[in-house]
């Protein structure tokens, strides 16, 4: 093989550069960074189980949206038969009172930009959210 040194050297340099983000993060200690959203202290059970909410909260919220807006039925009955008013500001934010410390933590980490808050209101902290939508 001609130019063995150059080829292998070039490949090595390429691999180093390509894997730079991985080992840089590992070296800087940020590789095991977790967004750690702040959970409400007052409640220990969300609408559904924590695992389900973690994986499917977006589908659940779309179901809430369609049920409430399209079908005009704003009562959600959870799998363990508790009832909730379908209301992003009034129900979700009642417990998860800080959008910055809860929603944004993971969304920023995963680079997700949901547009819920373009219309739905985020009440200022300390002011209890109220109302219907």
């Amino acid at each position, binding site marked *: 093989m001609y130019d063995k040194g150059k080829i292998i050297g070039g490949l090595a340099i390429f691999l180093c550069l390509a894997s730079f983000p991985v080992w840089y993060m590992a070296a800087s200690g940020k590789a095991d960074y977790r967004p750690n959203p702040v959970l409400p202290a007052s409640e220990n059970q969300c609408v559904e189980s924590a695992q389900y909410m973690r994986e499917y909260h977006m589908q659940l919220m779309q179901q809430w949206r369609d049920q409430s807006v399209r079908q*005009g*039925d704003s*009562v959600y009955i959870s799998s363990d038969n508790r009832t909730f008013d379908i209301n992003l500001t009034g129900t979700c934010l009642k417990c998860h009172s800080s959008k910055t410390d809860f929603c944004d933590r993971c969304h920023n980490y995963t680079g997700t930009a949901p547009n819920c808050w*373009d219309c739905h*209101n985020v009440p200022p902290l300390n002011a209890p959210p*109220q109302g219907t939508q």
Partner: protein
Amino acid sequence: MSNMNIDRRSFLKLTALGLVALAAKPALDLISKPSAASALNGPAPGGRLVMVVNLNACTSPDGCIDCIAACHRVHNVPDIGNRKEDIRWLWDVSYDQAFPDQEDRFVAEPLHDRRVLVLCNHCDNPPCVKVCPTQATWRRDDGIVMMDYHRCIGCRYCMAACPYGSRSFNWRDPRPYIKTVDNSYPTRTKGVVEKCNFCQERLAEGLQPACVEACSNGALTFGYLKPGTEVYKLISSQFNLRRKDELGTRPQVYYLP
């Protein structure tokens, strides 16, 4: 399944159990339904929702805007301050603007100075619904022509189709133009069309529309159009007008001149 035989006694027992289960189901459903679920959820209990505006009782010529202020406050309607970009759910116009086809020197004379309160007519045959390419606007069973801002793509076909100018487009983010945001109702965002929703969010809580509640002159009446209701009595007992009825939209806001 070696023995499919069943004696008379167990047959009767099973039948009785089945009947009990059948009877228990609706009863259980009734109990488990939360009280918050209003009569407006699901099919309409009868008739459709209409609004009656009594032009003689309305004091808008004297500058009263109680209903407009209440509506725009509870729905976070912005005050852009620029006529081209105005967002309006409920507003007043002159008689000839409201009823161009009724503009007649003698018939309309006593009404000429009247300001006429106008809003979405929640038509029985809504042209806006027909043209919406995403079904972001649709007509509910109770007659409310609803908007789903989640689905609106801002094409404004509905605005072109509506003969009443009842729809407004958000040319910019409305939030900076809302004096006090009421957190109980969402704002809108740039690029969606909005209009009066007959206060469906208040109806679901058993309240009257905000404009009806705010009017101290009793000029606005709202309810199901079916025999016996107040709106039915009002519009079946006297001459009334509807805006541009001849277009075939079958508007459901009735005006008592």
